[in-house]
């Protein structure tokens, strides 16, 4: 089960047939996606080749500062992606989001690499970077959903929150339902993924390992760790970010700062 079937470059070009199908569909049905498909194809090839060369270099270099530098770049990129998805501009939420992502993803990635997989040193790039990448990629989407839900519900229920505040509620009591709803919205996709994994879909990581020649029983162990890791890191980061961001929605007098739109 250890032989890896390499894809020659000529065969890789054959995969472009799928892109031709997509382009033809766009042309025949006037979808107007031709330019996007072309740009997407070029970006996929160039970005992944660059990443391939970069990872080869990083794996060979085995440098702690370089590994942590890559991790930092990944987290910063994720924060900018969250910023792009969340349209809120009234409440500054990026700083607590960045710090939470940095700390919680680092703790999760170290725990998985060192304690569960048993890699020494814990920052061995071949394990640490893919693990961190999976945590960041999944939790980033969850955080964007949670933050967006928190802000939109706060605005929608502004009068209700103020009513509770005027009756003696503190800001936590006045926004408790919204807080729970926002955290749950972020966590549900990773919980649903646990329900469907192995039945409805084979996750990318497990499929990749199997395609690369790993024993399926070995691949599922990794996948189980990944599924648990994603649920845990999503819960941890969503709760911490929600606590920090919710507080910023209220002023020093616990008055709601978000205005109605």
């Amino acid at each position, binding site marked *: 089960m250890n032989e890896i079937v390499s894809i020659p470059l000529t065969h890789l070009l054959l995969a472009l047939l799928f892109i031709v199908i997509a382009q033809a569909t766009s042309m025949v049905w006037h979808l107007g996606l031709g330019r996007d498909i072309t740009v997407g194809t070029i970006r996929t090839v160039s970005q992944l080749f660059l990443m391939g060369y970069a990872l080869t270099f990083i794996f060979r270099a085995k440098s702690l500062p370089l590994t942590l530098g890559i991790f930092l770049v990944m987290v910063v990129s994720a924060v900018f992606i969250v910023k792009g998805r969340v349209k809120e501009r009234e409440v500054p939420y990026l700083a607590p989001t960045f710090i939470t992502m940095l700390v919680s993803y680092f703790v999760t990635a170290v725990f998985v690499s060192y304690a569960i997989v048993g890699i020494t040193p814990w920052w061995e790039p071949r394990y640490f970077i893919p693990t961190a990448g999976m945590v960041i990629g999944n939790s980033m989407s969850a955080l964007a959903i949670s933050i967006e839900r928190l802000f939109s519900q706060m605005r929608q229920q502004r009068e209700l929150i103020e009513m509770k*505040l*005027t*009756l003696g*509620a503190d800001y936590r009591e006045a926004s408790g339902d919204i807080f729970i709803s926002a955290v749950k919205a972020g966590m549900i996709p990773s919980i649903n993924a646990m329900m469907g994994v192995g039945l409805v879909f084979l996750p990318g990581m497990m499929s990749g390992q199997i395609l690369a020649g790993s024993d399926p029983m070995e691949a599922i162990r990794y996948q189980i760790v990944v599924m648990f890791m994603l649920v845990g890191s999503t819960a941890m980061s969503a709760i911490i970010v929600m606590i920090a961001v919710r507080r910023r929605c209220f002023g020093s007098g*616990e008055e709601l700062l978000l205005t109605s739109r």
Partner: protein
Amino acid sequence: MQGLSFSYPGSAAPVFEHLDLSLPEGGCMIIRGASGCGKSTLLRLACRLSSPASGRVLIQGSDISAMPPSQLRSRVCLVSQIPQMVDGSVKSNLLLPFTFAANAGKQRPLDAGLMEMLMDFHLPDISLEQSAVKLSVGQKQRLALMRALLPGPELLLLDEPTSSLDRESTTMVFSIIERFNAEGKTIMLVTHDEEAPSGPRTKTLTLVNGKLIET
């Protein structure tokens, strides 16, 4: 209120500047004025739902900005013009203030007391178990006033509490406010209604161009 200035975010023109206002304990102050002149803002500033650009609000000599906000609002309660109900029964809405930590030491009323109060507020056909969100605006407005009175705040801030009520209900609500005031509670009332309380402790002011004029 001492030297209060306030502007809406993004607006250069102040709603009022260096405004002074004093309401004695046990008094009743009625504030009138044109729509949008800042009457509701005065009430919001009194319970820290809005923050002044400058100046301060004192309650019994203490600056409210130094008080824990929830403790302040368990003593100073605002009833807004548009009544808000949480999804649930009339009873759960009336008892909502008692679910908050700041009101933990206060005595929860019994069902019999709530029923009696509903009668008092001309709501005899409403049961404690029915849904509060399905009530009419006028019914919700009276329920919101009841809910504010139940924890026994020292200062009650009322923003147009009779705007959705008929003549008979308006008279009844104002008589309840007068009674509450006679029991020693302090009232600050914003209203357009001519039939407002007019007891010996009542003072009426009109807010015009950011200035309060006694009428």
